[in-house]
């Protein structure tokens, strides 16, 4: 045992003299940083501000008697997510080229999931501990139970109804927005809820637009190509925050004032227009990666150009760029904080900053605690998504040469 540890150390940390010096120097810096960080976390940090303001951070000024709407949406999301995962698992199981690895025990599956999603799981646990009341625990337990049950149901569903589940996702998003909007108008949403909603709506809307732009930029029609190129380069050349400030301070001039939309709509419009340019470039990369032979084969089969684009080129192109699209979604999620700064939303970041001015905490210099919490939440969300996208990349075999 000791010998194997020694061997490991020699092989990984002390291969030669330089290596040993590097290890010692880097290691001591690391230890000191770790010490400072842990001290902040457990000794000097004062986390009441996060605990007291947790509802504000997560949902902004959401009234407590309307919380059932959020609860319903979370449980419904668990239901749909579980179903979709079940159906997908079953599809994979019945795919003809599948290598049969035999049934896996539930424990294995749970461990697997934990390994995949640990940043998100850990953060949710942290939130639950901070919340200190029973209701959130119940909600999480209910959501997990519903998800597992739905997963089992999904695995038993006949494949024919699988498309219904696919349909349920966009319909569910719309229904969720409608349900939430009924309680509090979306111009008053705040906290993490607002960051998530902005990102989800903008990515959904920008995707079709981005695909059209990408097709336009590669089209044989010169005017379309020019328009798409100008659009893409214009939006990629300007910082998002400048566009948001512009929309905030000047959008009222571009449209008749009677129909000027609220701040949330403005933010969504800007985020959508901005992200569409980036999605277009990603999809264009995907289009270029489709071998010309595919198009020629389509032509040889007598397909029209539209059919070739729709049935042959786009599916392959988009499959190739799914990980990049996930990456774009992650940066969109992070960029929603800019909407808060530029438009004065109480999104997660600004809610945290504003909370330091409350009577109980004013002048205590607790902004570090609030910021660390915010960064942690964003990190957990983004990191989980980026890990999943890497997994997807491997599964799809993208980039394998």
């Amino acid at each position, binding site marked *: 045992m000791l010998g194997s540890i020694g061997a490991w150390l020699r092989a990984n940390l002390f291969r030669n003299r330089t290596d040993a010096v590097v290890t010692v120097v880097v290691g001591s810096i690391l230890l000191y940083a770790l010490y400072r960080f842990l001290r902040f976390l457990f000794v000097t940090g004062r986390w009441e501000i996060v605990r*007291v303001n947790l*509802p*504000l951070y997560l949902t*902004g*000024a*959401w*009234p*407590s008697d309307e919380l059932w709407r959020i609860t319903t949406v979370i449980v419904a999301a668990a239901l749909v997510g579980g179903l979709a995962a079940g159906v997908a698992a079953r599809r994979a199981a019945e795919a003809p080229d599948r290598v049969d690895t035999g049934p896996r025990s539930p424990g294995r599956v749970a461990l697997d999931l934990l390994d995949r999603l640990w940043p998100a799981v850990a953060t949710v646990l942290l939130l639950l501990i901070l919340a200190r009341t029973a209701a959130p625990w119940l909600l999480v337990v209910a959501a997990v139970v519903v998800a597992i049950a739905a997963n089992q149901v999904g695995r038993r569903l006949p494949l024919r109804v699988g*498309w219904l589940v*696919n*349909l349920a996702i*966009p319909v569910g998003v*719309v229904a969720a927005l409608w349900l939430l*909007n*009924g*309680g*509090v*108008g*979306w*111009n*008053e949403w705040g906290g993490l809820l607002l960051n998530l909603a902005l990102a989800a709506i903008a990515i*959904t*809307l920008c*995707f*079709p*637009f981005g*695909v059209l732009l990408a097709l336009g930029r590669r089209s044989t029609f010169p005017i379309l190509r020019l328009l798409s190129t100008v659009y893409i380069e214009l939006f990629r050349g300007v910082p998002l925050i400048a566009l948001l400030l512009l929309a*905030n*301070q*000047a*959008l*009222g001039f571009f449209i008749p*004032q*009677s*129909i*000027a939309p*609220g*701040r949330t709509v403005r933010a969504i419009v800007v985020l959508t227009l901005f992200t569409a340019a980036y999605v277009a470039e990603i999809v264009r990369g995907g289009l270029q990666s489709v071998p010309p032979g595919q198009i020629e084969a389509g032509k040889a089969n007598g397909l029209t150009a539209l059919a070739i684009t729709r*049935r042959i080129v*786009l*599916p*392959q192109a*988009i499959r190739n760029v799914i990980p990049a699209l996930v990456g774009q979604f992650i940066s969109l999620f992070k960029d929603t904080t800019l909407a808060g*700064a530029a*438009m*004065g939303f*109480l999104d997660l970041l*600004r809610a945290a*900053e*504003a*909370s*330091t*001015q*409350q*009577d109980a905490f*004013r*002048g*205590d*210099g607790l*902004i570090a605690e609030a910021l660390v919490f915010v960064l942690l939440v964003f990190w957990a969300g983004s990191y989980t998504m980026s890990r999943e996208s890497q997994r997807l990349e491997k599964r799809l075999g993208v980039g394998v040469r």
Partner: protein
Amino acid sequence: MSRLLRLLSLLLVLALGAAACASADDDADDTAPEVEETDDADSEEEPDESDGDADADADEETVELTQGDGSLLDAVIAADEVRCGTRDALPGFAVLQPDGTHEGFDNDFCRAVAAAVLGDAEKVNFIDLETADRFTALQSGEIDVLIRNTTWTASRDGGEGATFLTTNFYDGQGMMVETGAFESLDDMDGAVVCVASGTTTEGNVATEFARRGLSVEVLSFEDTNLIQEAFLAGRCDGWSSDVSQLSALRTAYPDGESALTILAEVFSKEPLAPAVRDGDTAWAQAVNWAVLATIQAEELGITSANVDDFLGSDNPIVQRFLGVEVDGAVLDPGLGLPTDFNYQVISQVGNYGEIFERHITPLGLERGPNAQWLDGGLLYAPPYR
């Protein structure tokens, strides 16, 4: 692959659907108010005051569009909500609480307007605005009234398309420094001063230092929290803002109030007043008299606690003011407000003195110029008759 395609087409349909819905909404606005009625009927499970904002907006637009150049007053009554521009972290004036409500001096005046116009002080939709966007929000109709610690100046009255109403707080810009660091502004040559960006504060500091022949470096932040941190860290030697603000910040200073000094020089007049959009007299008058109600009530000695006793008063001034029926007649000054609006304001929000004591006195600030004229202050309400 086919699944992807299906998903893709679904997304497309969804986007088209969303676009279609949006345009359908616009159509509804143009055609008739009946459509809105049915909308409301559809969402009957909600209590009245928690109507979605979209509905409120739609209502307001309907009124505006159908009545041409009708007053915002009608629009606000139709929407059953006052959209009040405010902010989220200004101690004493407007602070967002952990439960999402707004508490502060400015917020109470928003409530007074709602009480006067709609009879319910809680029918306010507080919209947090950055300093730089507040006039744009007013111009674009995003808010009905701006009560956000805003100084009344000539160029704002003229150039920003805003009409300022009765001043509800007389303030002045001062300079706060660490006790002992500087005795007067003239000692501060070469100092770094922190201010909030996009306000007159910024220009005032530059002008004042230039006038005294001193050099100064002005850092400006959107976010008060960052100013506070920068000042605490000694990044700035001075923090310039309205004296009321500085007092508020001083009370919360970790090292105690005495660690900071507000210099004696006050280098600007800052009358803080509510503002509405230019060219809407009816709405401007309504907001103005809602503010004046609080001042008048203090002069008459009416508070939220004793207002009901005053209903039986036989003083004709009080009777007129509270809209009490005398011999079958009630004074209706024709402001487009309910005749009992003063009563509603006082009973639900309180008089000026109460509001001041609730939010400003805890900051350690005296009434000073904000006392009634009878006490040597500047508050003076025109007669209500």
